[in-house]
């Protein structure tokens, strides 16, 4: 008669233990929302920073900006071009 009592006790204890674990895990996960909120905020902050930096980068790499900066720095447009359109003779018959 002792064995069934022992088995039943183990089963009851196991059920209680598992229930307790479940309660603890559920509680800890359910409050992870605070952490999630913080992660969301950090993500949003970095995303915003990336977009702002990208905006600055695109502004300074635009042709409009480069052109105006070049003229401010004294660069002038090349009006002439040099091209070799006929091959030079290797030897000229005298």
């Amino acid at each position, binding site marked *: 008669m002792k064995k069934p009592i022992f088995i039943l006790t183990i089963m009851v204890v196991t059920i209680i233990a598992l229930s307790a674990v479940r309660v603890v895990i559920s509680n800890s*996960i359910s409050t992870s*929302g605070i952490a*999630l909120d913080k992660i969301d905020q950090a993500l949003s902050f970095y995303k*915003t920073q990336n977009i*702002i930096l990208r*905006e600055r980068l695109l502004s300074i790499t635009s042709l409009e900006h480069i*052109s105006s900066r070049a003229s401010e720095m004294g660069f002038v447009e090349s009006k002439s071009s040099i091209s070799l359109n006929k091959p030079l003779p290797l030897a000229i018959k005298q």
Partner: protein
Amino acid sequence: MIWRYRLILILLMLAFAAILLRLFYWQVVRSSDLSLLGQTQYERSLQITPERGDIKTSDNFPVVTNKISYLAFVNPKQIKDKKKTSIFLSSKLGVKEALVSSQLSLDKFWVPLKTGLSVKEKEEIENLNVPGVGLEETYTRFYPEASLSAHLLGFVGKDDLGKDKGYFGLEGYYDRLLRGKESIRTQIFDALGRPILQETSSNIKNSKGNSLLLNIDRTVQFIVERHLKEGVEKYNASEGMVGVMDPKTGNILALASFPSFSPSNYRQYNEDLYKNPFISNLYEPGSTFKPLIMSAALDGGVVAPQTKCNICDKPVSIGGYELHTWNDKYYKNTNMVEVIQHSDNIGMVFVGQRLGIDKMLSYLGKFGIGSLTGIDLQGEVSQSVPQKNVWYAVDIATRAFGQGISITPIELLVAFSSIANKGTRMEPHVVNSVETQDGQILKIAPRESGRVISEKTAKVMTEILVNAVNKGEAAWVRLKGYRIAGKTGTASIPIKGHYDPEKTVASFIGFAPADNPKFVMLVIFDKPTTSIYGSETAAPVFFKIAKEILLYYGIPPAGE
């Protein structure tokens, strides 16, 4: 006793039936209402406004992208001293006091005050700590190249519901692709209103619009816009426009018009400026139309390059009208090469008469004159060529030299490109490919619109146009060392049934290098005042731009 048991049984059954009915009412009839009520207690739905897709030039540089801006809003119910707050907020936000005051007087929980605030402005507002005033992050369009290619791009405004919508140009034509799909994100909260960890909706990752990769070459566009602006100012024209196209593919390399507008501040400009005149304005092309008619006549076998014009020694009278050449100079027994070289109107009357209405109509149709080119921009128009039964005798004469027929600049550019592309007309395309958010690239392949003239005719016509550049009216500005095919145009403007002698549309169309064309370009100045002629206004600008494009492409001079 039995009747008592029976009575109790019946009462119990009635009670169960009542409970069943009540349960049916709550769980079936009102189930959806209760479900919604429950959801509102622990769920909040956030509408995710999609970020609009980018528009990039052929070098992958985004000429239109998004930047973060802020919307300042207020809850009027939290404002105690509305007058004092109105004065304070209007000075800080730069909005009229009356507008802020009217917004604060509304019986609402949320009213907008100002949109498009920068990060710096947002921080300034936050530091004020005004109760009831809040800031919301939004995306607005950002143009790194400022107003470069504004007509081509269009702009983003608001629709009837206050949502972003693209108008004109690419923003208008590709609005649905660029704007993406709106999605809903659901967040579950606990009893204290804290968010609970859960899987987010699966469609959020697709909430950004598709991006467009253009055929537009940013450098070519920049060169074109700079010279066009200089030209409009130098020749004191009311308007100027330039289109550059690759004749082999139909790719639009640059498209510019001046005066233009700034897409980021489009409201500050007159609405008439929003339209892209290159695709929306009809005009009589004048002499730039002559190569099309001459090509048709050569291809139809009604004339040959050496055919002599036997009516070119004096003005001609047709249907009660006397037709002259542009400079009142007449050349006896001139041939077809010289007709184009001298831009001889009487020579073109001779060609038109040889061609006849039927053949002229047939070739104009093949060139795409009178129909939409199919360019992927919003706002293209076209005017049908009049049917045969409404043509008078003088019409065939005047249309042969480009008067009495209205077309758009894009129609002429595409039709003329057929000569450069060995007689085959291509459909013009601004967009090269669409980039989806999954990283897929959907390429838009070049499309042939059909053969217009034979390859042989195209070659002959090219030589005639090279001769026109080297010996014609614009020879003084030509690029030495390069073989360029082209034609000047000085078209009269019809006003109230007659042509104004003082106002013209000056233009130049051509392609280079003539033997293996990399681009076809059309330059137009509307009503230039320093000179009314295309050879003195549009042609110099054409060759200035052509020189820089040839250098940019690394094409050396190859002799004339």
